[in-house]
């Protein structure tokens, strides 16, 4: 194994862990095989579901415009890498600035998009239900199917119309 770490990289990084614990691993299990693979903690399932829905929504909105991830990144002035992660990783919590950039690009209320992305608590039950319904109806195919387009239009209507109770 060849490890190429420059002195500059190391000097820049070393101070970041000053005073922090770094311990990992439980001695009792070292070398033993087969941890039972389990999903993330139950308490976070709701958040994961929101991230998943938000990612699906961003993907469909992008495809509706006929944009690549790079295209959307340029228009929304956000990182293409984060867009990729938003669309593909339900464990990723989107950056607030990214959600605002996407809201502006899609001409949607930022506040509702922030709730949809799971960055704030609350939001109406209608928005939550429609979010899940939308995500469940959309599949990752190109171009948008008629069903996806219908689901998207219905969901867009909810996002625009829904206001705080």
């Amino acid at each position, binding site marked *: *194994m*060849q*490890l190429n*770490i420059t002195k500059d*990289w*190391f000097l820049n*990084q*070393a*101070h*970041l*862990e*000053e*005073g*922090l*614990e*770094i*311990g*990992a*691993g*439980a*001695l*009792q*299990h*070292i*070398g033993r*095989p*087969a*941890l*039972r*693979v*389990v*999903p*993330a*903690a139950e*308490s*976070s399932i709701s958040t994961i579901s929101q991230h*998943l829905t938000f990612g699906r929504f961003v993907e469909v909105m992008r495809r509706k415009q006929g944009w690549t991830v790079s295209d959307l990144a340029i228009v929304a002035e956000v990182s293409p*890498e984060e867009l*990729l*992660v938003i669309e*593909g*990783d*339900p*464990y*990723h919590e989107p950056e607030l600035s990214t959600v605002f950039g996407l809201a502006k690009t899609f001409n949607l209320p930022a506040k509702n998009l922030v709730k949809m992305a799971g960055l704030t608590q609350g939001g109406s039950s209608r928005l939550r239900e429609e979010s899940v319904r939308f995500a469940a109806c959309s599949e990752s195919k190109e171009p948008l199917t008629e069903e996806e387009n219908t689901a998207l239009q219905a969901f867009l209507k909810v996002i625009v119309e829904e206001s705080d109770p």
Partner: protein
Amino acid sequence: MVESTISRLQKAGIPRDKWPQDLHWDWDKKAGWSRRFLSLQRFAITCGGALQGLMLVNLTKLSARIASQWGKDLAYIDYLSTAPWNRPEIAGVQQFHGVGKIMVRAAIQVSLDEGFRGRLGLHALGQAASFYRNVCGMTDLGTDNDYYNLTYFEMTESQAKAFCGET
């Protein structure tokens, strides 16, 4: 050193849940003890004539849990720690910084060399969660009830690139 540290912590009135969680580990015997596990890759950092950090990497223990890389191989950090004589809460000073960063960087290299694209997994001690979440940029998958209630973290390919400064 451990006994004197415990005594100092007790005298200072520091509650047990705030003590270093691996305080009881027998550091002096770690290197020799790990030789029993030939499947593990072992890493040590020495400086100033003393051992400063140890890491054990397992390539077969478990596969990825994040949905985007579910089931894919990863390099699992079975154990990582810095020496007690290099930790301010024990020795009173921290002579060297960066042991954790350089070890994680080495684990990423192991993952890359194995074709695992930099993917990593580990169970962090509770007091170390901040390091893996905020300094290493890994994804926090929450408490693992099947593994001593430690917090499970995973690093994706893109997170590994970011860690290495490639993005």
